[in-house]
């Protein structure tokens, strides 16, 4: 393990009853890196993410966050310093936008003035409107707005690490693209370390510095988008990369064809 690893998994396995969900996974995420984990449903990607902030415990192996073994750190404190964007958003329906964003700072005992300032800052950061959205309830927002609040909530307590579980999956393509770009900008500006799960290879290729492909509980490929696009060793990886490549080629053909 290198000194600058923000997250490190070493030979991690996870079984539920008879089923082996993760089978000897080792993975390093450097500080400030944007890692996308791509894989089909049931490949173990959500389980892998949950192991990092101890929403789940590994059956064997070691998980380290910023050099500390998570097994020996307090799970609640660990979760408070790691941002988490949930699949399907997971906003608290009985709390306003401001209250949702403020939740982790409140749990950490920040004073009211600091929390209020942080709420406004984050609403701006995720490009929502303070006057319009601050006191609304999640049910009164559009899908895209809700996901922006989800990101703002994850960033609430100024975490250095953010975990995202298919954050943009349920959105229309335009919103999804805008949000993806906005998040990538935040990642760079704030110097975050991000692990994002997606089943959409194109999204991974466009946003991430590095992509890990998980299949059947194992990591079958791990590299930069360029490297994976040209890696022909694993059938599944080839198949995955074929789609964005084909889409890109069609698009290029369409754009080059004279009118």
């Amino acid at each position, binding site marked *: 393990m290198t000194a600058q690893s923000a997250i490190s998994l070493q030979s991690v396995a996870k079984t539920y009853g008879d089923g082996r969900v993760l089978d000897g996974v080792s993975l390093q995420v450097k500080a400030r890196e944007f890692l996308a984990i791509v894989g089909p449903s049931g490949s173990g990607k959500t389980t892998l993410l949950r192991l990092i*902030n101890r*929403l789940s415990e590994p059956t064997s192996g070691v998980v380290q966050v910023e050099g500390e073994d998570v097994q020996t750190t307090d799970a*609640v*404190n660990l*979760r*408070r310093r790691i941002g*988490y964007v*949930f*699949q*399907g958003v*997971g*906003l*608290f*329906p*009985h709390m306003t936008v401001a209250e949702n964003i403020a*939740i*982790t700072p409140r*749990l*950490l005992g920040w004073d009211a003035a600091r929390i209020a300032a942080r709420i406004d800052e984050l609403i701006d950061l995720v490009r929502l409107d303070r006057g319009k959205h601050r006191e609304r309830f999640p049910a009164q927002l559009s899908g895209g707005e809700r996901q922006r609040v989800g990101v703002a*909530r994850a960033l*609430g307590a100024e975490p250095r690490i953010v975990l995202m579980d298919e954050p943009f999956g349920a959105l229309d393509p335009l919103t999804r693209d805008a949000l993806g770009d906005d998040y990538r900008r935040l990642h760079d500006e704030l110097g975050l370390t991000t692990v994002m799960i997606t089943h959409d290879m194109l999204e991974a290729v466009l946003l991430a510095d590095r992509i890990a492909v998980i299949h059947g509980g194992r990591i079958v490929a791990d590299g930069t988008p360029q490297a994976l696009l040209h890696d022909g060793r694993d059938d599944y990886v080839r198949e995955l990369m074929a789609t964005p490549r084909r889409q890109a080629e069609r698009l290029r053909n369409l754009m080059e064809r004279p009118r």
Partner: protein
Amino acid sequence: MNRPFGEALARLPAYLGGHVAVSVAALLLGLAISLPLALLATRRPALRGALLGFASIVQTIPSLALLALFYPLLLGLAALCERMFGASFSALGFLPSVLALTLYSMLPVLRNTVTGLLGIDPAIHEAAQGVGMTRRQSLFMVELPLAMPVIMAGIRTAAIWVIGAATLSTPIGQTSLGNYIFTGLQTQNWVFVLFGCVAAAVFALLVDQLLALVESGLTHRKRGRVITGIVGLLLVVVAALAPSLSVARTTYTIGAKPFAEQYVLAALIEQRLRNAGLSASVREGLGSAVIFNALRAGEIDAYVDYSGTIWTNQMQRNDVKPRDEVLAEMSTWLARDGIKLVGGLGFENAYALAMPRAKAERLGVKSIADLVGRAPNLSIAGDYEFFGRPEWTAIKSAYGVNFREQRQMQPEFMYQAVARGEVDVIAGYTSDGRIAQHNLVVLEDPKHAIPPYDAVLLVAPQRANDAAFVSALQPLVDAIDVGMMRAANQRASGGASPTEAARDLSAEISRKSGRAR
């Protein structure tokens, strides 16, 4: 119509106060127990099954029986306390009512709280954990607020059940709006019955609507509504309790069983004591088994019982003896507990088999013995106690009668049923005004299977040497003959209030003693 209404209204402060006190105490205690239990049970499936099962079983026990069961239980407990600590508590009225109603309130609160908490989307649970909440924070910041509407619905159901069932606490000595209903049923005072029902319903609706206001305030986060609702609830409780607190505590309490004659006699005794300058009040509607123990424990100071009841129920005697011997033996037996037998009032109120005169003549029935061959074609009705009492066993074994059918009824309906021919024979009461009213004939008892039932005035141990008290009661001894009692009973079950019937009876007593002098 106006007079009974006025009288009902005059009793409202005391009855409503008692009702509110007992139902609010039961609800608060029920919530204090059920809510934490539900929280524990939500995370433990085994405990959840056991708790909800227990609460459901409690719910299947008829509320009247549940209330009645707590009285002997507490009586035993009180005796134990007395022996161990030298101090005891009252097993009558408030305490057993609160405990039984508390049990009764548990099911809706438990079930709705558990359902509400289990119904929360697992994704929300996970989000609460993911943002760094401890289990406790997740419960109080997320789960409980989200389950609130369902929990409040359970609390509202419990409130309505408890307020309704509290009317049944009257027979175990707790004053409640049920006093209207029990008294009204016994004295055919339908204004009272209706008044009690409507008062209980209005109170229940008021509480329900105020709780609804609190609920809507919590759900929509309108602090104003929550405060209005809670202040409203407090106001209702205080408004209901305040007048009853100012109802003066009296020195002497007179007990009455739940039937017209007892109401009249209790009112008569109360009037006597007041005229003698003593303060007295009536605790009415006490069950037959409850009232004797209440006297022995000193929870009431005096009441009228019947020698046959004491003889069979308390002394557990099955033999039949002449009146004088029964009275003498009973007096000695009562004295062992310190209870003073002031004396007989001068009339008997025995159980007696009775049937319509026309039918008796047609069948040629004059005595119980004449029923022997005919009983298999006849039906008999008795009050709720009769068929479980030794008298019934004695009648059956002495005469060998077996009826085609036996039915239990509220005494009032029993008389009407026999008069209309729905049943053939009833086990009525000799001093009952309704015997004459419905033109019934009392069947003779040549084998003396039914023991004598002299009305006797009993005084609690702690008042046995209270000269002022006993001497105020003394003039009632041998002062009332069965004709006078029947007339008073007929008045009391024909629309007049027990107080009025007692006043007339008192005047009659004075007239009679004047004549005798």
